[in-house]
């Protein structure tokens, strides 16, 4: 479990995060959402110690990470895996070398054992046979999966993912989301994900923290988010007409005013009525 208490971060005279608190539980995907510039990446970097917060503290299993000295922080960091927005793979190393890097640095296992572990995690992220490829030879989705394999190779207790779906198509995004969710549940990891992808929110969001201009605006889960009355949150998640329509349909469905049990044959039928929800007050 990670606990964030009253975190504040400023750059010069600009306050980027103002008094944010949250509890990220183990074995679930904890999402930090918000529009660009809302402070979610800064919050995550404060959590992993890449930025020093001006006030507040971050607790890992009750231990105050913010107040720790260098060597103590290093010990906690060995339990952290992070998937960066741009994957952050080492360009001059192959997939195998990238994934093996943390093992080489922190374990004294024989090379055969390390290779076994590398192949195991590569298989877990569906990248069997890509060992000898260089990052420049991989697609965006494959790079993310290699970065995920590298992040989990030391069996971390905490997994941080910064925009895991940025630059990926919806299908690949879904694959990455499901992979993160499966790994989180399988290894009981405390996973923290920064995203503004609503598909991710609805797919994997066990706990959702919505940031607005550096403040915590809303928190809840993926079911609660749909019915939230928070105007700013609604503006953010239903920014597109498509999603607004989907929400209206969901609301009507919940109220029993329409049924959404049409099958594919019916949808493919040219004469079938187009499903446009009637006005809410009808």
């Amino acid at each position, binding site marked *: 479990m990670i606990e964030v208490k009253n975190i504040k971060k400023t750059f010069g005279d600009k306050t980027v995060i103002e008094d944010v608190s949250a509890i990220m539980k183990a074995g679930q995907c904890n999402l930090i959402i918000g529009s660009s510039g809302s402070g979610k990446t800064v919050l995550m970097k404060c959590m992993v110690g890449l930025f020093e917060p001006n006030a507040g503290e971050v607790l890992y299993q009750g231990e105050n990470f913010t107040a720790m000295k260098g060597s103590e922080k290093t010990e906690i960091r060995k339990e952290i895996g992070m998937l960066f927005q741009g994957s952050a793979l080492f360009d001059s190393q192959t997939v195998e070398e990238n994934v093996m890097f943390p093992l080489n*640095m922190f374990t004294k296992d024989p090379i055969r054992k390390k290779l076994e572990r590398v192949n195991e995690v590569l298989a877990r992220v569906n990248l069997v046979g890509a060992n000898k490829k260089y990052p420049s030879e991989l697609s965006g989705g494959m790079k993310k999966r290699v970065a995920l394999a590298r992040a989990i190779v030391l069996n971390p207790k905490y997994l941080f993912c910064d925009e895991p779906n940025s630059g990926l198509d919806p299908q690949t995004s879904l694959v990455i989301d499901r992979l993160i969710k499966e790994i989180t549940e399988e290894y009981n990891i405390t996973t923290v994900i920064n995203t503004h992808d609503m598909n991710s929110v609805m797919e994997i969001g066990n706990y959702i923290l919505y940031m607005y201009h550096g403040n915590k605006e809303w928190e809840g889960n993926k079911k609660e988010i749909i019915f939230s009355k928070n105007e700013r949150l609604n503006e953010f998640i239903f920014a597109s007409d498509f999603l607004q329509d989907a929400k209206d349909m969901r609301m009507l469905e919940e109220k029993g005013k329409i049924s959404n049990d049409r099958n594919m044959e019916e949808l493919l039928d040219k004469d079938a009525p187009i499903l446009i929800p009637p006005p809410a007050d009808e």
Partner: protein
Amino acid sequence: MTIFKDIGQYLLMIKGMFSRPENAKMYWKELIHQCTEIGFGSLGIVAIISVFIGAVSTIQTAYQLVSPLIPPSTIAQIVRDTVILEFAPTLVCIVLAGVAGSRIASELGNMRVSEQIDALEIMGINTKTYLILPKILAALLMIPLLVAIAMALGIWGGRLAGVASGIISGSIYDKGLLEFFVPFNVIFALIKAYVFAFIISSVPAFYGYFVKGGALEIGRASTKAVVVSCILILFADYILSALLLPTAQ
């Protein structure tokens, strides 16, 4: 005020490099890799420059020594001393600031911008120790060696040009090389090489490590690293010459 901030940040970076390595084997591997990059990567250009500098020195010295009272072997003495004292350490290091320095700055800058340094930090690795220290150590090991090679090649290049153009015979050149030789000059050149090696590696590392922004900023940092390194090399050259070379006063 920026200059004081930069100097402070530079000194903190140097201080931050000295920590216990997480895995000595990995650091050793990185040191060998950097030695290969800095040493063998620059050997070609150092060889070419040294030979031509020696050759040009011989021809220009001969051009200026028009008095029949001066023996031809003096050309070899002048070429030897200028190559050892100035051309091999200073000029080669200025070239190396461009070759190795820009490579160090752009490599670290690219790692910073693409979050590779952050990734290493998250893993619990001291990035200053892992990324910067091996580069500085490799430079301190390899650059004096390159300077020594440059000295030999420069003097040989001078002989080659002298003989080829008929200015001086090989035997007189060889004789001249041994006349009035001061071994301290070689030691002085190597002291300069160590100081310049530290500048060539640490200054670009500083500009690359702390780069902010994108591709454009990496280019700017790389250029700034080379310019500042060259200025510092020339400044250190003057200070070392003033301090270490005995003058006839």
